[in-house]
């Protein structure tokens, strides 16, 4: 009788099962933004891990076996959806041997649900348009109002998976929304003097941010999504910036800055690196800090160009 627990422990070890399940809900997300939101809502009831780093292009993530390990232990997987992760996530989910996080189960949360998704194609699309997303622009978390929706989705799902924590999650969500409201007013005030400013961006990553803070994206350094800059298109962009007196060129941290730098040198526009995700810089530790950084960087650059 006494050896029974030891034997079962051995069997558990041999099968690679966790001998004692940790009490915290394991949340894995594709983007650090969702992990940060889950942490803000879940508090010490959750443990979070993000597959893509904040300074990495979220379209191109390697399906590393170490991610399979993370997913095999996950209780909840939060994804951006809209086919942003199509290049790496499906095989990871298949290999995770974790039915909980398969699409359709409570452990799979598509964060785009309920969010304002822009650029949903309304006419037939082909790949002659570049790497277009047939379900709409997947960079929707760059609008803090969508962040609010995502936080609510996460709170609802956490409450479903861990009913004992529902009151905590509701309290944390209310606190998050209270802080978000204060911050939104602050960000709006900072960018209000620059309403309607025309900007050029590298990739079409910022339609949601531009809409929320009233910026006008009039061109892209990429000739088409996913196609690197070409000399003729770069010339067109230089002319566009000169003609429209565009003060700033926004780029993501993972793009080669040579072409943007060249354009800036030719036109006098300023290159501003905006971070699309939490973790892009050490000081961008949570979702609100992401906009604190980006809004400040943008406002400072626009003010210096006045």
């Amino acid at each position, binding site marked *: 009788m006494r050896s029974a627990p030891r034997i079962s422990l051995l069997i558990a070890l041999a099968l690679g099962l966790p001998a004692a399940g940790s009490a915290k809900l394991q949340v894995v997300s594709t983007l650090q933004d969702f992990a940060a939101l889950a942490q803000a809502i879940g508090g010490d009831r959750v443990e979070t891990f993000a597959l893509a780093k904040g300074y990495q292009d979220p379209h191109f993530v390697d399906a590393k076996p170490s991610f399979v390990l993370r997913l095999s232990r996950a209780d909840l997987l939060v994804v951006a959806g809209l086919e942003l992760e199509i290049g790496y996530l499906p095989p990871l989910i298949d290999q995770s*041997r974790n039915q909980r996080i398969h699409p359709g189960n409570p452990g799979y949360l598509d964060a785009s649900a309920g969010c304002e998704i822009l650029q949903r194609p309304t006419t037939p699309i082909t790949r002659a348009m570049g790497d277009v997303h047939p379900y709409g622009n997947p960079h929707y978390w760059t609008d803090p109002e969508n962040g609010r929706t995502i936080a609510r989705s996460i709170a609802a799902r956490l409450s479903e998976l861990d009913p004992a924590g529902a009151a905590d999650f509701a309290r944390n969500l*209310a606190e998050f929304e209270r802080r978000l409201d204060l911050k939104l007013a602050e960000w709006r005030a900072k960018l209000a003097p620059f309403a309607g400013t025309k900007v050029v961006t590298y990739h079409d990553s910022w339609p949601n941010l531009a809409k929320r803070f009233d910026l006008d994206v009039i061109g892209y350094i990429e000739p088409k999504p996913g196609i690197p800059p070409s000399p003729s298109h770069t010339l067109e962009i230089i002319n566009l910036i000169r003609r429209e007196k565009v003060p700033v060129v926004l780029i993501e941290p993972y793009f080669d800055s040579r072409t943007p730098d060249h354009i800036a040198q030719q036109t006098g526009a300023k290159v501003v690196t905006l971070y699309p995700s939490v973790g892009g810089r050490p000081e961008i530790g949570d979702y609100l800090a992401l906009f604190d950084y980006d809004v400040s960087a943008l406002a400072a650059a626009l003010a210096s160009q006045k």
Partner: protein
Amino acid sequence: MIVPSLLRRRRPRAAAALATALALGAPLGAQPSAPPPDPVAELRAEIAQLRAEYAAQLAALEARLAALEAAPPGPEAPTAPPAPAPAASAQTSSYFNPAISLIGNFFAVAGDNENESRPIAELSEVELGFQAVIDPYAKGDIFVAFGEEGAEVEEGYVTFTALPAQFLARVGRVLATFGKTNSQHMHYLPWADKPLPLVSLLGGEEGWRGDGLSVSRIFPIGETFSELTVEAFRGDAEGLFEAADRNDLAYNSHLKLFRDLSEAANLELGLSWGTGPNGSTPDARTDLAGLDLTWRWKPLRTAHHRGFTLRGELLQSDRETPDGDQRALGWFASAEARLARRWWAFGRLESSERADDASLRDEGFALGLTFDPSEFSRLRAEYRQRRYAEDVTADELLMQLQFILGAHGAHPF
């Protein structure tokens, strides 16, 4: 809605009860057994009962409200926001169609090679892929290859993703999980051709494919990923195994170890062992052993235009024949570098003895450049030299064009 229907349904009896209650001066309450029914009393009783029920419910709701108001902010249990309108309203009938992809592979060759005759130009393969979730328990993958010799199912299997105890099983025709390169489709290889030892020792350009069962399980060692795969196939595999009896099976096993060395670098080590009947005598078998090693470096911030991979495999084929054992050894080593967002360069060294005559050794090297106009097309040029055991040297330039129509699946790692 409930209240009127209740009243309507009970009206005759309620009226009777009300009359009884009035007549007897009884306390209000439904007493269906009371002899002369008083409808007025019964109606009053019913109204009183409903009033009491509502009062109780109201009290409960008020208590809950008070409790929620007393508790710090949390106004109510979080609820999910409404789902968005469907993205594409059209094509609803095709929702359950599999993802379909067509991958074309066109080759042109310059130079001469007496040992391996490729035509000067060839649409060598068009791979038609169908992939879909079958049901909550399984997923299906079918790849049909159309080539010069007609169409054949290259791979076709069902993956059972919901097995207990973290098992994953594939049933059908699969590329054997032997080494790293054999299980990868042509268009995912970093070169224009297959490395020499795989062609010489593992069933030719097509590789080792088996019809049967493949089961794998993860056995994590701390943060090291470790996966054991065991496969059992029927004893025939083109260019590799031949079974005299249908009960003669081929087996394969593979242990894969993977570890992140840093955020940018990782190391993968694989050990493989396989066996199957070779047909030279009814009992003769070929044993295969393999070692594969891959080191990758891909800085996350500049992954768009920088990256480096070193990989190599060592294979041994031990073939029993009536004239004695043939133990043949082969290896390749390759380095691949990403030069810019759309440009890659590679170099490969290779050497292999022949499976049926280990005294013959072929050697070679390859150098190449890959250009991807987009994620969906690829141009590649490979200069290849092979020095065959017959003292023949072949210098060739392989030019390759690959293109994807339709669904673009995930990249295998």
